[in-house]
């Protein structure tokens, strides 16, 4: 089952998130992540939803989402034409001996250290998923205390953008 990234414009009002997430759970669609926030128009929110499914499932997901009155537009983002990013915060165990080597890895990954204590370091990083996975893998050697991830958010490259108007016609 392949992975797809959907960018969904929705009315920014209460209940929308539950309608969208409820749709996924009751129709048995697999969702990897969902992130949501306001757009350039405060009345509109944009959800970035990462789903797994074959062509049939993906088509059903798009059509069923389109049926929700609060959904304005759905665009599937082409990975080649888009920038995918996620923010992760990772708290790792440190000792006097390991601290230097962790800091070295952090700088190789262009991540930031946002907090330090006697026993831990907290790293903030953005990147695509593979970068974050790779970093987490390395940190496992030191002992990870906590991982927090926002889920993917995405935007199209170049001048392409998703216009906020009425929902696109099906097919």
């Amino acid at each position, binding site marked *: 089952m392949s992975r797809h990234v959907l960018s969904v414009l929705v009315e920014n009002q*209460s209940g929308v998130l539950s309608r969208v997430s409820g749709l996924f759970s009751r129709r048995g669609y697999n969702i990897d992540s969902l992130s949501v926030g306001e757009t350039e128009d405060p009345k509109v929110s944009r959800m970035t939803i990462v789903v797994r499914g074959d062509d049939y499932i993906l088509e059903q997901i798009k059509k069923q989402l389109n049926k929700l009155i609060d959904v304005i537009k759905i665009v599937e983002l082409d990975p080649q034409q888009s920038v995918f990013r996620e923010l992760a915060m990772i708290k790792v165990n440190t000792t006097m001996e390991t601290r230097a080597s962790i800091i070295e890895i952090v700088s190789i990954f262009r991540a930031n250290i946002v907090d330090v204590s006697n026993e831990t370091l907290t790293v903030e990083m953005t990147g695509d998923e593979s970068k974050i996975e790779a970093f987490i893998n390395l940190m496992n050697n030191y002992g990870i205390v906590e991982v927090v991830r926002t889920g993917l958010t995405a935007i199209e490259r170049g001048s392409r953008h998703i216009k906020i108007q009425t*929902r696109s016609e*099906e097919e």
Partner: protein
Amino acid sequence: MKAAEAIVKCLINENVDTVFGYPGGHILEVYEALRKSKIRHVLVRQEQAAAHSASGYARVSGKVGVCITTSGPGATNLITGIATAYMDSIPLVAITGQVNSTKIGRDMFQEADITGATESFTKHSYLVKNENDLPRIIKEAFYIASTGRPGPVLIDIPSDIQAAEIEKLVIPETVNIRGYKPTIKGHVGQIKRAVKAISESKRPLIIAGGGVLLSHAEGELLSFVEKTGIPLVHTLMGKGSLPGDNRHYIGMIGNHGFSEANRAVAKADLLIIIGTRVADRAWGGISDQTNEEARIIHIDVDPAEIGKNVGTHIPLVGDARTILTQMIDRVDRVDTDEWLKELKSFKKEHIKRKKEKAGSIDPKYVIETISKKLDDNAVIVADVGQNQIWAARHFEDKIGRRFLTSGGLGTMGYGLPAAVGAKIAAPDRQVVAVVGDGGFQMSLYELGTISQNNLDIIILLFNNSRLGMVRELQDRYYGKTNAVDLDKNPDFIKLCDAYGIKGVRINSDSELEDAFETAIRHKGPFLLECVVDPNESTIL
């Protein structure tokens, strides 16, 4: 003006003259405003019936059905009715009271999250937070309920909002929801492809669903069939889309349909599916034998139905009536004489009167007989179970007749309250509620509503002292039955008598004609109880 009065004004603006409901503490303001209005309020005996009655009303009147209840238990009692309407795409607006808006979320007395609870089977819902939004919300609700693929819309209104003052009521003239623009007209390119596919077919077949009736496309469908010569089968919900005596009419498909109709689907080289999702019950018994080569044209107003249950070669999104109109001018006659002859040869003699079983009546004969005796614009409402299938298989469709049932959710207890709504929508048409002794008892309380309003409804009760359809399944799969025995049923005639409703019980075929004549002649509600053998089968 009080918001509650504005609500009622908005309802009147939507052409509402009748609502079905049940009052309570958190909807008092609306009831007070209703009292002062010209809207007729029909007091049901349980809120589930309010939704079913509104559904029956909607299906017969062609308008949006409206039901109103209080918060908490009143609202939760509506749930089954709303879900039933959703599955059959019936346009409803349900208005529920809610606790004070500043107290929501604190588990107040009679608080229930009804928008949350009904989320998966409302087309849309609103929790009103500001009284000034009411005119727009009500306008939108009626628009959403009745356009595109129809369905129930719920408006939850906190009690303080009902009581709030609205400075000036301005009802918007139009609706503009940017996320909701249903497609009505068919795509011309696709229509051309469909027309071409029709001209190339040798064994074309129409499968008509409930969408034909919802879009009032019976007339266009008839012209289309007559012009092209294409035979037609239908789903349970599509019953009534073509008169039964039309020579292109083959019959109902599905698990409980006719074998010749199912065989027609299997043999066709082109299926024109109109207004149906072709769910498992309709496709059952066919899917394994359909012609792999058959091409499929699928017409549906809901794009999500296309390709969901059956694959499609030519999708046609839009309103059935509009699309049929678009197609009629473009299609030519297909030479279907051979095909029709073949289909007619599949047809078996259906009503083989078995030997009369002493003390019981043949339900198929009953439906056949009443079908002959009822008017050409009669409404028949079938509950769920064997009674439903008997009615669906043997009640003859005519132009103007209407067959109502809960096809999607299969909700027992639908029949009686839906008949109430139907009768109130069309007081001059004969209305018959066909019910089993199980389903009758699920909505027995509505005898109160029927009696109070002196509704001229014939209740045709098939009393087999069993939950017949389940009894049959258990017999077939396990050879034993469990929990389907209703032997200690009350005396239904006496029970109706207690409500002031007349009735007779018959247990032989020979008594039927007279008894039914009496039922028809009787002014006011009438119970005709037919004693049926507990082992009577659904199909054979």
